[in-house]
């Protein structure tokens, strides 16, 4: 942390109950290397105890602190203040889009969590499916015994950034479709039926905003493209196959 101090104005979206939303402004003295979340916490601690916001881990693994900062979806715990404003400048903080606001910066993420469960998104995977560290096929077979947490932290930034999620409330959204891709439609006929519909990957029109805002290397846009491939291949295969392929116990428990 530097010794420099900036004076900035933070404009916070406020909405309580059925009152009309408005913005409150708070002038703060901050270290520019602090994070936006630190600024919001200081507002709550010293200026206004009624400001509602979510936070937990403070190191981008829980996904709780997702907000819109100057109109762009960010995890505020890893967004330095100097990245979004300058000395004397202003930061506008709003809740994520496309989720109902509970209070101020807190939104109801229930739809995301329930859809992730519906598609059977896996929170734990074999390390051999970790494309970030090395290409998939280069993992030694014996390493599949090791497991890791899935990349998706269910922060909802992708859904907030998606232009189709803005107009369609039933669109499953990038995070859920990425989770479905990771699960694999071939193994689950119910999943195929769930995603091969007007709320599935056919709603994606390649804006790639989800991948642009994802803080966790999920690359949802690419996974949506791969999910499309999975669905098309599965549908073509079923044209020539009379009986649906049965899952083994191992595959069902995956």
């Amino acid at each position, binding site marked *: 942390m530097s010794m420099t101090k900036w004076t900035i104005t933070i404009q916070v979206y406020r909405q*309580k*109950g059925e009152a009309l939303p408005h913005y409150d402004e708070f002038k703060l003295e901050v270290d520019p290397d602090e994070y936006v979340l630190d600024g919001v916490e200081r507002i709550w601690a010293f200026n206004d105890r009624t400001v509602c916001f979510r936070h937990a881990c403070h190191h981008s693994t829980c996904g709780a602190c997702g907000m819109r900062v100057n109109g762009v979806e960010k995890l505020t715990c890893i967004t330095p203040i100097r990245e979004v404003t300058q000395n004397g400048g202003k930061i506008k903080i709003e809740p994520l889009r496309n989720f*109902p606001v*509970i*209070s101020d910066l807190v939104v*109801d993420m*229930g*739809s995301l969590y*329930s*859809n992730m469960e*519906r598609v059977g998104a896996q929170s734990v995977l074999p390390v051999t499916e970790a494309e970030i560290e090395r290409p998939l096929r280069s993992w030694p077979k014996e390493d599949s015994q090791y497991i890791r947490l899935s990349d998706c932290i269910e922060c909802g930034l992708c859904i907030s950034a998606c232009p*189709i999620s803005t*107009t*369609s*409330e*039933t*669109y*499953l959204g990038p995070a*859920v479709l990425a989770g479905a891709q990771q699960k694999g439609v071939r193994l689950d006929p119910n999943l195929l*039926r*769930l*995603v*091969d*519909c*007007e*709320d*599935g990957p*056919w*709603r994606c*029109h390649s804006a790639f905003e989800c991948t642009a805002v994802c803080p966790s290397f999920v690359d949802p846009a690419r996974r949506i493209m791969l999910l*499309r491939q999975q*669905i*098309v291949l599965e*549908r073509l295969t079923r044209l020539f196959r009379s009986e649906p392929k049965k899952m083994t116990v191992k595959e069902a428990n995956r």
Partner: protein
Amino acid sequence: MTQAPKSISASTPKSGENSWLWLLKLVTGPFIIIFMLVHFIVNHAIASSGLLNYSDILTYYTIWVVPVMEIIFLGLVVSHSLLGLRSIIIDLHPSRGVLAVISWLFLIIGVSAFVYGTWLITVIVSLRVTL
């Protein structure tokens, strides 16, 4: 204290769009580019006057491959455009009833446009033949 609002979760899967319709839209696209290039190059570069008068157009349509190509091009463009437009409307999450009406309307428009265009091409071909 305000009760947290009820979550909106995805409804039962609907069949307004599926892999086959999407594939059709995807496949027609590149073919349209190819046909469009041919349509443009022939119409405006190879044809002597750039097909800018009536008798040149009629002469052009006596080459047998031209009406065939134009009919196929018409089918591709009509289906791609209406599937695309329908997809944009589905992005706005219409009700099932509205979507059904729009789907039938587009089907009627598409078939009508194709039939009309094909009829027009055969009329143009026959006009030259009778001249």
